[in-house]
């Protein structure tokens, strides 16, 4: 019971971090059709910039400055990069962001080196918030939840209550019509791209000291974020939220599940012997294949419901 409660909390925290990353990616993909491979790279830049700023000024200024820096970088990428490749089609834009990812990764390695940097939780937040069955829940995770919830509220308010939000919502599904109505759709694109990158930067500030800040952090988190976007469905922030929480929970809970898939199948009356390959694979405890599960889920989703959980456009 204790394990379930604690894993629930941890899974929720991790899910919210994924949501911060995936929401920007979903918005960009939905609106511009560009799958931004460099998104995880912006996340990494956010973490490193936050590390530098927290060294110079402090953590809380970094919380505001780093996302702004990432938004500025995003705007620059959109105006000088994506806009030029836009008329060459989606593939060209995709390849451009793909190449950008490598440039960002190498740039980070050249500036900060290959070793992890000591980006730590600020001392003022480094205490146990409460103790559940003898295990401490760090206050910093509570802070992460707070920031993520605030961000979610902020996005929702902006999208539904402001004029620019309404234009963005319309452009998500009917960009041509919005353009025909006279709105400056290219400018909307830049704002959305910059906003998405700013969100990724914020995720980097929060997540960099929750995990390890090192040059391989982008490659580690990038694939999972894509899984979330595909699983949740394109054009849908709600689907993205649900998918992030599900994937976060799956990855966290997989660790505590010591039974294997074949044991679970046995529970519903299906037995598979271990003499063949399929039997061998299914008899591995779920805890050992935990990292595999989100990708399995994505493949199943693409097979049976390609538009995702709550998607409005086909993948």
């Amino acid at each position: 019971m204790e394990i379930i409660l604690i894993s629930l909390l941890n899974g929720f925290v991790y899910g919210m971090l994924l949501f911060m990353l995936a929401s920007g990616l979903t918005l960009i993909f939905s609106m511009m059709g560009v799958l931004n491979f460099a998104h995880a790279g912006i996340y990494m830049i956010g973490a490193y910039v936050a590390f530098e700023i927290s060294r110079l000024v402090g953590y809380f200024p970094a919380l505001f400055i780093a996302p702004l820096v990432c938004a500025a970088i995003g705007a620059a990428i959109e105006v000088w990069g994506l806009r030029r490749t836009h008329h060459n089609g989606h593939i060209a834009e995709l390849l451009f962001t793909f190449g950008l990812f490598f440039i960002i990764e190498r740039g980070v390695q050249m500036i900060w080196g290959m070793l992890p940097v000591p980006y730590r939780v600020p001392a003022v937040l480094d205490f146990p918030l409460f103790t559940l069955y003898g295990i401490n829940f760090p206050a910093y995770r509570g802070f992460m939840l707070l920031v993520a919830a605030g961000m979610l509220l902020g996005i929702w308010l902006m999208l539904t209550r402001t004029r620019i939000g309404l234009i963005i919502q319309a452009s998500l599904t009917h960009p041509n019509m919005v353009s025909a109505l006279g709105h400056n759709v290219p400018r909307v694109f830049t704002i959305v791209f910059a906003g998405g990158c700013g969100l990724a930067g914020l995720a980097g500030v929060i997540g960099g000291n929750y995990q390890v800040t090192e040059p391989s952090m982008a490659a580690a988190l990038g694939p999972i974020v894509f899984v979330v976007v595909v699983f949740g469905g394109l054009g849908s922030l709600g689907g993205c939220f649900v998918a992030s929480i599900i994937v976060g929970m799956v990855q966290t809970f997989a660790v505590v599940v010591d039974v294997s898939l074949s044991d679970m199948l046995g529970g519903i009356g299906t037995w598979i012997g271990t003499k063949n390959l399929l039997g061998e694979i299914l008899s591995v405890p779920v805890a050992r294949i935990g990292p595999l599960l989100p990708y399995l889920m994505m493949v199943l989703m693409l097979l049976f419901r390609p538009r995702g959980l709550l998607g409005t456009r086909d993948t």
Partner: protein
Amino acid sequence: MPWLVRRLATVVLSLGLIMGGTAAIAQETIKVAFIAPFSGAFAANGDAWLKMLTYAMNNVNARGGALGRKFELVTFDDKIQPAEALIALKAATDQNISIIMGGIGSNVAAAMVEGVSKYNQRNPRNRVVYLNVSALSNELTEEKCDFWHFRFSANVRMRVATMVKGLPADVKSVYLMNQDYLYGQGVAADTKRFLGEWRPDVKIVGEEFIPLGKIKDFSSYVPKIKASDAQALLTSNWGPDFNLLMKAGNEGGLDIKYYTFSAHLNGGPRAMGDGGGNRALAVLEGHDNMGEETGNQAADNWVKGWRATGAEFDFPWVNFQTTWDMLAAAVTKAGGTDALKVALALEGIEANDVYGKKNVMRKEDHQLLQPFYTAVFTKPVKYDSEKTGWGWKTQSGASLPDLTFPPNCNMKRPSGS
């Protein structure tokens, strides 16, 4: 006139080449390739190994090196991937380097042993010898043993035996956590075997295999370990997998003993901090305070020299020094760097380690035989680790005869040996 200019040019050019040539020969070092991860999750370990190996090499060079030449380390990045390591091997052999050092990641080492063996079969005139300084799986000197591979560190069986021998009598329940690859699986298997043979009173209340270098947040495992009511966590996690495990354990306030195989490596003491004080134990070949404990001034000076280099971590792999000492002696005996001659010279070689204890490179399986120890993370000690205020203090030891298990290697010897 033109013919004079041409003549002059030829003379000047040849003189320059000769002078440059002799200068190169006079400074020529013995190149040793070091293949290790310098990027990715284990980059910190590659970096630390390089610093330690360089210090040990400098000590040997200060004594004159071998055959009047100094050693030089040339690094190659393998990203802890077997495929990349084989590419690095190709790069090293392209540079005509015949001595390859490596050993971060038993999975990589296994691929290297096979790769070196195949390479030597195909290139009998340019053979290489593989010196494994830290890849510990038993298989490398048993099922996969090879004439061209030499392991310069106690293998998994020797380490687990030291750990179980030194397990305090009041420990009755343990939780096993290991990485899910050749090394971690070997540790788990040997742990169960030795606990069954020597400590049947100890119960294994939980077992975990984690993917190598992939988990960045171990906090999901903390409630699981707590719920098992284990008195001690027995883990061979190393590198980031250990450091992040300790970080999660401290954050979660886990009150348990840590019996580890890698707490003493770079980053470990800092990750443990106060949370590991008087709780953590490590199985190691040496630590910075052992010289002072045994009254060995030479060992203490060696540690002082290491700390003077400004390194931010301890130097527990004293076998790195033994490796260079043995290599220098072997190259001298072989009269050169020919792989076959060096390998033959290394077989059966004996040398004293930093503490003056005899180490032997066994001929049958190319496994180094050495004594091994367990140490607790405590204070006060003369040298603390990574500025934490805590340091290592020897708790128990196993001697070379204790750890000499029968060899189990069917080695195919090349012709001429």
